């Protein structure tokens, strides 16, 4: 078991500094090295502390300017782990050498990208946005709508910042062992909560839309049902988003002209 001292060689201010810097990981996204400049920027505060001389720091920056890509939120797991490995490398208390760090960083690219896309882009973000849409649909008062949007903002950013912070702390405390924590199963409860939220929200939006359509004209109700089913089917058939949207808009023009 790792000692408390070992885990917290990184102080609270260091963790907060890494967290703040992690928000800019994609700022200099480019086709040659992807997020490497942002990643290097996040780690540079640690680099300045652990590198003993100028040459050492130049080598550190060069090492981390090499190709790297990850999901922006989950990249914090790599930031935490690499921060620890760099510390070990410079303090010579571990079996780490620069090549191992580079190989380890490359090995993290795929799992961090995959879990990030599956958790954040496929579940948490759409679920939070559906939560926001439900509020905008059901609430009439504009001030309450703004308040509801603020709630949506908080709902999304609690798990967002939690993932970033947990990534840094877990990454730092685990080092090479971090791959054990980058598993979708570890986020199951969080994802289930957001999935249920999203599905209830979609159900509520359908109810609201049916009401909207029926209070206007039967043709609107028909249009709603046809576009709902056809878009669902087309998306299942892997059509790009614009095909169902364009089909729906053409149907809207036809209904509007009739």
């Amino acid at each position, binding site marked *: 078991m790792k000692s408390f001292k070992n885990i917290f060689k990184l102080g609270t201010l260091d963790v907060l500094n890494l967290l703040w810097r992690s928000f800019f990981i994609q700022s200099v996204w*480019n086709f040659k090295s992807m997020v490497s400049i942002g990643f290097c920027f996040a780690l540079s505060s640690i680099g300045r502390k652990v590198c003993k001389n100028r040459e050492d720091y130049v080598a550190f920056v060069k090492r981390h300017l090499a190709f790297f890509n990850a999901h922006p939120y989950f990249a914090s797991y790599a930031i935490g782990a690499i921060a620890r490995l760099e510390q070990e490398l410079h303090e010579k208390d571990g079996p780490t050498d620069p090549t191992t760090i580079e190989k380890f960083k490359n090995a993290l690219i795929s799992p961090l990208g995959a879990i990030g896309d599956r958790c954040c882009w496929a579940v948490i973000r*759409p679920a939070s946005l559906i939560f926001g849409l439900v509020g905008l649909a059901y609430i009439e008062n504009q001030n309450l709508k703004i308040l509801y949007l603020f709630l949506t903002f908080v709902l999304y950013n609690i798990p*967002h910042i939690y993932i970033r912070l947990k990534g840094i702390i877990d990454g730092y405390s685990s080092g090479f062992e971090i791959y054990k924590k980058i598993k979708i199963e570890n986020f199951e409860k969080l994802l289930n909560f957001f*999935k249920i939220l*999203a599905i209830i929200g979609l159900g509520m939006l359908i109810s609201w839309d049916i009401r909207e359509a029926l209070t*206007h004209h039967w043709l609107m109700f028909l249009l709603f049902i*046809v576009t709902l089913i056809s878009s669902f089917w087309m998306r299942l058939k892997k059509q790009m988003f614009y095909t169902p*949207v364009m089909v729906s808009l053409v149907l809207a023009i036809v209904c*509007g002209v009739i």
Partner: protein
Amino acid sequence: MESVILLCAVAAILMLDNAAAFQMLLAQPIFAGPILGYLGGNLELGFELGFLLQLIWLSSMPVGAAIVPEGNFGSMAATILGIFLTRMHPQYSEFIVFLMIVYGILSSFIGTRAIHLIRKGNEIYLTWLNNKLNQGVIISLGRVIFFSLLFNALVVFIFFIVLTILMAKFFELFQGVLIADLNKIGVYSRIAILGSGIGMTATLFKEKKWQAWYVVGLLIGGVTVFYEIL
């Protein structure tokens, strides 16, 4: 014109939240729409366009490093132009909603070009940093991040301004042809987008074990609507 410049500047800053920094949802149409609507003096339109355009993009995911149509860019461009056109031609307000949905989709592809340009431009920083490091010179990475964000916002701002001016001029060309009856298309397009957006989004949550929750949602929605009618 001043308000268009202001809106484009705010939208360019909000676009930083899209991918370059923070990613806290502020660039999403549901947030950006009302913010731009409030600043442009038409909060209601901001809410409406934000709601509809959000539904369109909800099921699109930026997987890995793939370049997808920039829905957030398209939505902001559409909200800015929508506010401008509604102020000039309030008689077509419903039809403008339809036009802005179409324009939002088209400009999302232009947004992809803008993002591509920014990312290509960012390669200059990498080359420069590596050259300096080879000479043994250390550059402040914070400064690189700052200038990159500035470049990012500037490119997006220029795209927004040019697009808004061009499209406003283009709309003027059709002044004599447009009739108030076209507003009907706007009303139908709203329902069509609601159906399409929900249909596409439902594919993200299609696992069998969760399907019962749709019924719960429908019931909660149904009871709320019934309560409203009563």
